[in-house]
């Protein structure tokens, strides 16, 4: 949650939309975004998630859906309250699409679907996926390399 939130934090900042944000502050936020994205790739190379007895790639099973979910819920929240004091709903939506186009092009379609056809069951701010246990990829390979390499666990990618 913290990583996804900080990645999208500029879009929740009034000074960003009014172009009052200092260049150094903007650079720092871009750095945090890049570091978070690199971390997710690195984590997915090293670890797997054990969900309901099956191993899953963290990028696809956790990181990708959670950032799309947060972005969609921010728009949903803004729509519900319709308060435009800091920035408009249109600015938030446009900003999120531009952000995903730049940093998560493969997730853009998924986000667009969520933005224009909201999930009625998504009633909370937080991502509520299944419970998981983190497993070291190397240890999982040592125990059962067939399961890990048989295509059940996709190769880590964004």
């Amino acid at each position, binding site marked *: 949650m913290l990583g996804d939130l900080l990645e999208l934090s500029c879009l929740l900042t009034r000074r960003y939309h009014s172009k009052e944000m200092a260049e150094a502050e903007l650079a720092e936020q871009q750095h945090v975004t890049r570091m978070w994205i690199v971390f997710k790739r690195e984590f997915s190379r090293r670890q797997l998630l054990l969900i309901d007895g099956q191993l899953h790639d963290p990028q696809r099973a956790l990181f990708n859906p959670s950032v799309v979910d947060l972005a969609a819920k921010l728009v949903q929240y803004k729509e519900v309250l319709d308060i435009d004091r800091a920035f408009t709903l249109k600015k938030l939506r446009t900003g999120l699409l531009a952000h995903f186009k730049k940093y998560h092009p493969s997730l853009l379609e998924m986000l667009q679907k969520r933005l224009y056809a909201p999930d009625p069951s998504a009633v909370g701010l937080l991502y509520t996926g299944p*419970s998981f246990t*983190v497993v070291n990829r190397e240890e999982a390979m040592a125990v059962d390399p067939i399961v890990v390499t048989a295509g059940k666990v996709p190769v880590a990618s964004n």
Partner: protein
Amino acid sequence: MLTRKHSFMRPNTPHYVLTLEHSITLGRHFYAASTMMETCLAYIHCGILNGAITNTDHPDAQRLLNRILLMSIREYKESNSGAYASQTSSLITAIMTNHNQPLPQARRFREGITVLILKQSRVF
């Protein structure tokens, strides 16, 4: 609050400051891994409702959150042979949780704001 010099609040606690005499108040943000979820929720509320529920920005607080994330990432990278670092556990757990908070309802929110305005009107 009147008899104490300090007051600590958990994150995501709605509040406003009211004093009977001219006063100087000083606020600080403290972040803890155990309450990071509430901190994130408060961040979202302040971001979406900026101007309606807060009268100031907190760029320094943002920097602290950035550092917490970057420090956690560094701890993870420096962990031995890719082992799952305990410091990262809270970070990952904070991403995905079954704890959920309903989206605010517009009518209830406006009622809340009205109550705050009426309280202030009575005092001043």
